[in-house]
């Protein structure tokens, strides 16, 4: 029995990986479910757009306050803009996106699949000769990835704008210094890696949510458990993955020389 403590999680992660491979294979299988993709993309936008706006403003503000205070102590006020932009573009944008994608989109996907599982809808679909992975999961994964990239853009823009307002209004920074130092530290690859991160986060969140939802069992309670597990696993996974991507990125693209 003690062996199951090790084999249990190992089996779940193995199954999750196998599921991700199934989805990758199904990505290239025709016919592509365009309608389902558009419906899902719109649905995910609907559940994430408002929370994104509300999260992005304080996120940008906190970073602006923090870095602004620090930089003031170092006596380098003219670089507040650059520090805030760097932090938002490189880290805050993708992280806030990850939170929203996992919390809002992931939980909605897991709940939807969980309900379909226990109502035997997924069984019915398989029996009708239709692969739910190709028909339902692939459009959701692609939709989540697409929306994640756009959310990342929104968080970045709103975060930087929020930082500007707080720096200029609350910290007596000069607008000119903030804007002028924009590109002092940040560089274009920072933005690309933010977008790539968002893509990967969207992929992982949709995969985990679909997997957990499709394997819900034990009636309505099972659906609740599946949603909960999906969100927790996605959060953990995304933060770990974020660490690795950042570490690799910093090695590959050296920070801008001053």
């Amino acid at each position, binding site marked *: 029995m003690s062996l199951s403590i090790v084999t249990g999680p190992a089996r779940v992660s193995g199954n999750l990986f196998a599921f991700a491979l199934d989805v990758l294979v199904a990505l290239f299988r025709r016919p592509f479910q365009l309608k389902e993709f558009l419906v899902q993309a719109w649905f995910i936008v609907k559940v994430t757009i408002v929370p994104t706006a509300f999260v992005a403003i304080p996120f940008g503000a906190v970073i602006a306050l923090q870095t602004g205070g620090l930089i003031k102590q170092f006596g380098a006020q003219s670089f507040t803009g650059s520090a805030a932009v760097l932090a938002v573009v490189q880290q805050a944008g993708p992280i806030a996106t990850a939170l929203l994608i996992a919390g809002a989109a992931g939980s909605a996907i897991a709940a939807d699949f969980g309900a379909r599982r226990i*109502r*035997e*809808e997924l*069984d*019915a*679909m*398989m*029996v*009708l*000769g239709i692969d739910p992975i190709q028909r339902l999961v692939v459009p959701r994964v692609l939709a989540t990835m697409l929306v994640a990239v756009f959310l990342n853009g929104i968080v970045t823009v709103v975060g930087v704008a929020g930082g500007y307002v707080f720096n200029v209004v609350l910290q007596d920074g000069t607008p000119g210094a903030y804007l002028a130092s924009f590109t002092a530290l940040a560089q274009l690859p920072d933005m690309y890696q933010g977008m790539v991160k968002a893509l990967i986060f969207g992929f992982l969140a949709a995969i985990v949510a679909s997997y957990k939802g499709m394997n819900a069992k034990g009636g309505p309670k099972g659906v609740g458990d599946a949603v909960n597990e999906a969100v927790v696993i996605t959060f953990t996974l995304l933060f770990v993955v974020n660490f690795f991507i950042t570490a690799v990125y910093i090695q590959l693209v050296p920070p801008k020389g001053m």
Partner: protein
Amino acid sequence: MGVEVVVEGLTKKFGSQTIWNDVTLTLPAGEISVMLGPSGTGKSVFLKTLIGLLKPNSGHVFIEGVDIANCKEKELYEIRKLFGVLFQDGAMFGSMDLYDNVAFPLREHTRKSESEIRTIVMDKMELTGLVGAERKLPGEISGGMRKRAGLARALVLDPEILLIDEPDSGLDPVRTSYINQLFIDLNAQIDATFLIVTHDINTARRVPDNIGLLYHKHLAMFGPREMLLTSEEPVVAQFLNAQTVGPIGMSEEKDADELASEAGIAMPALPPVPLQLETSDGRPRRGQRDPGAWCRDNGVTPPPGSFARDADQAVTA
């Protein structure tokens, strides 16, 4: 024209718990079979194994030469097109209305135009008495309607094999009679092989050509209707006549003490065998046999009063 389903040595376990062991039977092509069993004997599991939704631990299920229990995913999706399945709660897609639900298999698998689809869908909806409810969502209708909608969807691709999970659960007796009559008429019309999973003995006594009984982790008996209805085998007799005397207890099986205390009590006499339901237009079905034919061929004397026109009244009295 109906397809034969051959099941050989099928065994299913969940972890260390055996659901059933070594089930071997053949569902004859174009005939109606019923799988009976006390609650929790894995009847639904059996049905899901037949379509490859669950993998058995050992054994084979052959359909047109393909072993469903051990074939590739791709073959499985192909062979499933022969099946129509009615799930317990209908398993309608919650986001689509009834019309789209029924049209779904046609839109996914055929290149028919919308007007052709409309003709087929409306035909099946009329057959199942759903005209006027096309635009309703599955959440807005009663359980009985969901079930009939599920049946309409299962029929839309003209299946060779129709699997039906508990058609009578949650239906009132009148609706159950209607749906049973519908199965008989459908069988005459499309000639498919039917397997009905149920624990309603009224259905079991009057509808099928063949009866199977799952009990205590194995297939107790499978054979022609009259063979089981005239069987003196305690488990079969107890279940088909819904009695407390016999080996089946409240929780799965009775223990030795309980059986010993019943040892002296004889099983009650078998009630008369009722007539099988006929098609509503009197048209004979392919799998239909003359009442009493099996008994005559096998030298079994049916209980007195069997096969009388009013036999079903005698049972309920």
